[in-house]
């Protein structure tokens, strides 16, 4: 099978890989690059566990071909904390018990980050809308919604 070169920036670092044509970004990140923070829950674009941020937009890495990411800037949950200091979203998920099994958590955090990047002070309905593509089966959505609202509040306090 033809190998395709692909270069992108992942969490601030340059990555260059040869992938089989048709390889999903999820597989490339997890199996070739070794960033296992995006999770494969359904591999068909319905659970949101594999969500990553590509050029500022929330994307499902299981439905994104790696070869289409040439030159892109990609963020995953594993790159969110800087120098060991948790991102406000990570801190809020931790403090408000918004992670139980943790499998949906990286995708949830990515979805929440895109929301807060565009809408720093979202309403509860906007949080619900932003997380609607991410399925959680054990934590329950209420603590997750609270975590996002908490992070938004702490962000606005920092900015003030």
């Amino acid at each position, binding site marked *: 099978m033809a190998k395709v070169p692909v270069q992108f920036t992942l969490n601030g670092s340059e990555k260059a890989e040869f992938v089989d044509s048709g390889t999903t970004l999820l597989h490339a990140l997890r199996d070739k690059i070794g960033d*296992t923070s995006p999770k494969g829950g359904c591999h068909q674009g319905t659970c949101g566990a594999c969500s990553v941020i590509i050029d500022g937009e929330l994307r499902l890495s299981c439905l994104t071909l790696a070869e289409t990411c040439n030159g892109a800037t990609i963020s995953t949950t594993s790159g969110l904390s800087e120098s060991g200091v948790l991102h406000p979203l990570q801190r809020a998920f931790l403090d408000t018990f918004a992670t139980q*099994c943790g*499998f949906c958590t990286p995708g949830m955090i990515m979805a929440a980050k895109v929301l807060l990047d565009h809408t720093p002070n979202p309403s509860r309905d906007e949080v619900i809308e932003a997380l609607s593509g991410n399925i959680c089966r054990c934590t329950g959505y209420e603590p997750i919604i609270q975590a996002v609202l908490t992070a938004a509040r702490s962000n606005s306090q920092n900015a003030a």
Partner: protein
Amino acid sequence: MELRKSYFADVRKDDLHEIGQPRPRSDSPGHVTGKTAFFADRNFPGMLHLKMVRSPHHHARIRSIDTSEAEKHPGVVKILTAKDVPHNVYTILILIQIGPEDETVLADGKVRWKGEAVVAVLAETERAAQEAAAKVKVDYEVLPAVFDMEEALKPGAPLVNEYHGQNYYLYDSGECRKVRFGDVEAGFAGADHVLEQSYQSSPIEHAPTETTGCVVMPEGNDRFTCYTNTQAMFFTLDNTSIILQMPGSKLHFVGGTVGGGFGGKVDVIVEPIAILGAKLTGRPVCFIYSREEEMQISSPRAAEKVVIKDGVMKDGRIVARKVTGYTDAGAYSRHSPYGAQKGAGHYPGPYTIPNVWIDTYCVYTNRTPSSAMRGFGVTIGDFALEVQMDKLARLIGMDPLEFRFINAYRDGDMKAHRQPTEGAALIECMQEASRAANWPVAEKYLAMSSYVKGA
């Protein structure tokens, strides 16, 4: 949350250091940073992918299996059939002396449900394993199947599982689990009203976000490390040891991180065959259910049917209860004989009833084997019992919550299985519930206690 310290004040301890104190979960920092290692986050060089060839029929005899075309498919490394499995017939609860062994790791001579594992294909890539699996030819003679529990119990029904010899699990108490307390017929004869209702449920899939699976690494010296998301580590270790006829000291299981389970990951299904694959190829093996397999192949909560007949007095006392429960095990036992047994223990409900008669059957049908799920054996029972309680209250024109106060078991009451009630606290819970839900009950019920009566 408000703690009502007036309850059980003389037995309450207020000097506890941990209970009532918030503690951070030890795994949360890993979860929020994406560092938690789930089993599928391990990726070893040279890892093979395992895919199952599954039965397209509910019940069929296997005339022949032809793997020759599949073996020629590029990337295929090994193909396993029943003859490759050292101890192919097993059952999970044999580890607590509940037999007989009734399930095959890979089907041998017969399939008993649609989706049953027949042939395992190990290949260099997931895609190659999938394509090769499609090339395995299995010649089936389709047999009559049975999908309904009452049909399965009728004389002349197709026999689902030869290891049992009949379509129900044979307990040491006979064809069902039984509870007998008082004289139920005399209770009905003396009751003001008798109400018989039947309730039934469908199978329910757990749908964990992380699908079932494992990754196996051969460590040399015939030892194997298995990274798995099982919820039943020692059942898995011990049963794998039996199936592979290997001492447990050669098997190193790494688990504890489960991406959702809800009881759906307590069966020993993926690990033995993946370890066997690693043993026979000398290479790492991963066997992960696709989402489709998770929804269709993994064992659901059992479908149940519950028939409840209650005798009740105009003043609200339940004087007799007769329950017949049916648990649909599907084609194999897994945890279902235990689930049906739990139902037998549970059907009196949290109520003191002087005359009780209970039979619960674990029935085999050609459906997907059912197994554990969050309170299996009692949750459907509770649904049926509490709907029945509401109907009984309506029948005698009584408030449903007050009706429950009258019948609630209290400390010192003898339960139907002859275990005296201790530490019930049910009255107190219902008092709090009536306040929280703003559902008023008469003052005399608020003055009741589960703590003193007869104790």
